[in-house]
Each structure stands twice: as structure tokens, then as C-alpha cells.
């Protein structure tokens, strides 16, 4: 594995980094593939843009039909990529905090918490983005607190946190079902559609608001990339090297929950992306859990959700919510991961 080790020193003024060319190349390719999924989403299938009129559709003198397709599909494709990136980073954060590849927000009940929060808001008559987003964030944070407190026993150990998280997630899911059963048909239907995790009906306005909300999260990525590698060395080593452990961990949990909650507020709970993206990124990008890991997780997440949504819309006989597609792929991946983990210990 000496290929990894040919890292270069990059220095420019006060800025300096140690960078592995292989990681940079892999990240560049991933970024291109992510752009590719957007292009694919615009062009594929009946009614798609012709590849030749792709750039033309952005100009003022585009044909009305082309512009309509762009309006229709562009927002959704960009949302998929943006949300995928958020989920990927959220997964990287939680897998680092739990020190376990199973410790992603969808497995440890945070998606379920966000979902329950939104359903509660809908059931109480709340409508609109702000109410949904608030419900999603509050639900996610409440679930995170519950999991943390229930799993706490002289510190939090990764695997116990995951088991407790799965249990809390199950409780929240049944709570959500109960809400839906008790609610009016109309409310229940809205909650159910939204709960499948779908990007259909995403508007440019939605994407704009989501992107704005994602800006502060993205600004935290350099900090996340600096902290995660230290955390990976174990609690004692990390704090002996100067990391303030508990504040850092709390900040990571809040950032991770916020990333998941953002996606859940707009698109509903989407499983698998947060779970798989960091692991896939690690294999493709290499270079550990630092900047290559965080960026790689974002890009792989973007590609996964982007492609997942294209598959959900065009590759299947019926149009499915993207959440259904990622759940199916994710289920298989999870089984494989569990097998590998149990084989290890």
C-alpha cells in the first residue's frame, strides 16, 4: 500500500496541507461523476433534454419545451446531489463518533426521530417548510439525546450506542405509525407519502432554501475534517493530543443531526446513503477520515442519491420514491456489512 504514501506538501502563504495525489484524483473523478448524474437526470428517458441542447437550455433563447424540462427536472436533480452530499457527511460524522461502520444516522434512529418530528408537526396541523424543518431538527436532536442518554454508561461505547439506536428507532417508527393511524385520512396520506422519502415535486424554491441552509453546514466541513482523524485514535489519545473531547463530540452530533434533519425536512427519511457513502468513499479515495474522507463521503453520497433518483424515475416499470430504491440497495449492503462485522469479531 505504498501508493498511498506519496503525499505531497502543499504550502501557499499561511495555508498548508499534506495531500495524496491519488486522493485528489479520486475526488476529481467523483465530482465529475456527480455532475454526470445531474446531466443524466436531465437527459434520460422520454421527454428528456437532448444532450446537444443541454447548455442551450440555460440561455434566454432556449425553446419553451426545453426550458420546461429543465425547470421540471433540474431542481430535482440538484436536490438529489445536494441532499446526498449532506447525508454522506452526516454518515461520516456518526460513523466516526460511534467508531463503527454501522453507526450511521439512519441506523441509530435519527432519521426515525426526524420523521417522527415531522409527522407530529403535520398531525398538529403544521404546514409549510419552516414548521416541517423545525419538527425534523427537533425530532432528530431529541432522538440523538435519547440514544445518547440510554446508551451512556461511564462514557458511550460505539456498539451499545448502535443497539440502543436501533431500539429507539423502532420505538419512534411505531410511534409514527400510531400517529398516522389516529390522524385523519388526509393527514395520514400526506405523512405516508412524505415518509417514503421522495424528491418528486421538488421546486427551485425548495432547492434554494435547502442550499442556503446547507451553507453553514458546508462551512463546518474543514473543522469536521480536522477533528475526525483525531477522534479515530481513541478518546484518551485524542484528548491527550489537544482535542477537547466532549465539546467536539457534542458539536459533531449537532452538525450530523442537522445534516440529516435538513434532508428529512425536504425529502423525508432516506436510508442507506449515509450508511454506505463513507465506506465506499474510504475504499475509492483512501487517505483516512480527514479531508479526503469528508469530501469523498459528500461526493459519493451525491452520486448515490443522484443515481438512486434516476433509477427510481426511469429504470423501473413504476415510478418509485427514491427512498424505496435506497432502502432496497441499503438492505443488501447492511446484510453484507453485518456478515463481515460478525466474521471479524
Amino acid at each position, binding site marked *: 500500500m505504498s501508493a498511498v504514501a506519496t503525499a505531497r506538501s502543499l504550502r501557499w502563504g499561511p495555508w498548508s496541507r499534506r495531500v495524496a495525489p491519488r486522493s485528489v484524483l479520486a475526488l476529481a473523478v467523483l465530482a465529475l461523476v456527480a455532475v454526470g448524474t445531474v446531466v443524466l437526470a436531465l437527459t434520460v428517458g422520454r421527454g428528456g433534454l437532448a444532450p446537444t441542447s443541454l447548455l442551450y437550455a440555460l440561455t434566454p433563447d432556449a425553446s419553451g419545451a426545453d426550458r420546461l424540462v429543465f425547470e421540471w427536472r433540474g431542481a430535482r436533480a440538484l436536490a438529489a446531489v445536494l441532499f446526498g452530499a449532506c447525508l454522506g457527511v452526516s454518515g461520516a460524522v456518526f460513523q466516526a463518533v460511534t467508531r463503527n461502520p454501522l453507526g450511521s444516522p439512519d441506523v441509530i434512529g435519527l432519521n426515525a426521530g426526524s420523521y417522527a418530528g415531522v409527522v407530529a408537526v403535520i398531525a398538529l396541523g403544521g404546514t409549510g417548510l419552516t414548521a416541517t424543518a423545525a419538527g425534523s431538527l427537533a425530532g432528530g436532536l431529541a432522538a440523538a439525546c435519547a440514544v445518547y442518554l440510554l446508551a451512556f454508561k461511564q462514557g458511550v461505547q460505539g456498539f451499545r450506542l448502535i443497539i440502543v439506536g436501533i431500539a429507539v428507532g423502532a420505538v419512534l417508527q411505531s410511534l409514527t405509525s400510531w400517529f398516522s393511524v389516529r390522524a385523519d385520512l388526509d393527514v395520514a396520506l400526506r405523512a405516508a407519502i412524505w415518509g417514503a422519502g421522495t424528491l418528486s415535486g421538488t421546486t427551485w424554491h425548495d432547492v434554494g432554501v435547502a442550499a442556503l441552509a446547507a451553507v453553514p453546514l458546508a462551512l463546518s466541513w*474543514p473543522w469536521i475534517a480536522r477533528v475526525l482523524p483525531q477522534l479515530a*485514535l481513541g478518546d484518551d489519545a485524542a484528548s491527550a*493530543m489537544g482535542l477537547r473531547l466532549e465539546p467536539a463530540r457534542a458539536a459533531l452530533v449537532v452538525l450530523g443531526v442537522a445534516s440529516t434533519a435538513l434532508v428529512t425536512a425536504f425529502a423525508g427519511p432516506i436510508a442507506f446513503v449515509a450508511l454506505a457513502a463513507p465506506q465506499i468513499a474510504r475504499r475509492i479515495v483512501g487517505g483516512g477520515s480527514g479531508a479526503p474522507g469528508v469530501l469523498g463521503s459528500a461526493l459519493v453520497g451525491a452520486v448515490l442519491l443522484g443515481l438512486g433518483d434516476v433509477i427510481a424515475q426511469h429504470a423501473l416499470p413504476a415510478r418509485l420514491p427514491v427512498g424505496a430504491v435506497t432502502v432496497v440497495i441499503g438492505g443488501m449492503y447492511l446484510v453484507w456489512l453485518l456478515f463481515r462485522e460478525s466474521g471479524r469479531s
Partner: protein
Amino acid sequence: MSDGPQDAGTPVTADRLSVGYGADPVVAALDLVVPAGSFTAVIGPNACGKSTLLRALARLLAPREGRVLLGTEDVRDLSARQLARRVGLLPQSPVTPDAITVMDLVCRGRYAHQSILRQWSRADQEAVEAAMSAAGVTELRDRRVDELSGGQRQRAWIALTLAQESDVLLLDEPTTFLDIAHQVEVLELADTLRRRGRTVVAVLHELGMAARYATHLVAMRDGRVVAEGTPAEVVTEEVLARVFDLEARVVPDPDTGAPVVLPRSVLRSRA
């Protein structure tokens, strides 16, 4: 900057220190001075508070009473990063990330010297090179840590704490689980670091090794210091009986003169 700091090193003082996890303190009202520039070995039976003491010295545990001084400064007055630049700790069981190379591991020791912007300055590079050279892992820099022998892996981790460039180095059972040759490898490294001016404190189980390499010994039992001084002063038949309930003969090493322990029997049941 070289791997060896500064003239005489920094003394570490525990002043009426009480630390613990649950109801009873593991370490109670302990007074201890680690001489500047010494290689101090802490010995004692299992669960006597050795590791707890070390973790308290590194401020991983907050004292219930008393304080820890670095030179004349209370460690509580330092920020996390200031403290990390002055005290390094190799924990008992650090986590080695999957597939990490020695160089990548050692680089992480620079955390306290870096910022969001500056993460690989020339000073970082020099410190990492010097640390790898001092720990003798320069040739292993591109190897994966999980493929190394136990002794090599321990030296890679010591290199990481050296890259921190702290005056004081705390090693929690650095030789446990190592075979005898690898133990010698690690202790000779600790001795070299001491010679170059660092203050080294290590929790050790192997008495003969401690007596051979350390310049200062601290014998603990039940959270208290039973004896401290030079190896010849501490490794005596009388102290071994008090600390370990062990009847033993102590004879001088024919080559070095360091005390050698020949165990005879356990004095009473150690419930």
C-alpha cells in the same frame, strides 16, 4: 526544532492529588514529584492506581482534590492545546485506524500545533521527520501500522507522541503484551529520550526492566506511594514485600549493578 527539547526538562508534581471514577477515590491525597529530566517508572500491583495517576497527570481525569503542576503551573490553567504541547501521553490501548501508514499516524501528533488553515507547515514536517527518526521508524514510514510487529507498532505510536514535541512524555504500560526483545526496544527508546532532555514517566509491570532503565522509581499500592527513589532504593526485599506481598531475593546485576528480582513466594493470600 530537534526531537530533544530544552535543557533540563520539566518536573511534574502531584500535590495532595485525589482522583477516582466512582464513589471511592482510586488515588487518595497523593504527593509525588517526578524529577525534571528523569525516566520515572511507576510500579505496583494491578489496580493500585498507576494508570489513574498517569491519566490525572495528563488531565484526562479531573482531580477531586489537589492539583497537578507542570514546573510551577497548574495544568488546569492551560488550554487543551497548550497542555498537549507540553505533555504527551501514550494511552494503554490506543486505537489504530484501519489501513493507516506510519507516516500518516505520526502526522496526527501535530494536532495541537496546527489550525484549520495551517495543517502541514515546515515545522510540522520537521517535527514528524525528527520524531520518526528518534523512534527508529523512518524506514517504516510507508508501511501500514497494522502490518507491523508489536514493538514496531509501539514505536510508531511513541513517534506520534514525540511529534507533539512535549517536554513531558507519559507512557501507560508501553511494554505490556510485548515479548522481551520488544520490551527492551521500547525501553531503550525511552532511555534515549530521557538522555535528550525529556521527562519520561512510564507505568511498567516488569520490575527488572524498570530497575534496569528507569532513573527514578515510584512504588504504589492502594492509591498511595509506598516508596520512591533510585532503583536501588526502591527495589529492595522489604519494599517488594510491602508493595506486592512478595517474598523475593534482590541481587545486583553482574554487569550493570541494577537490582534484579528473584521471586520466592507470595507472602499471604491476596484477596
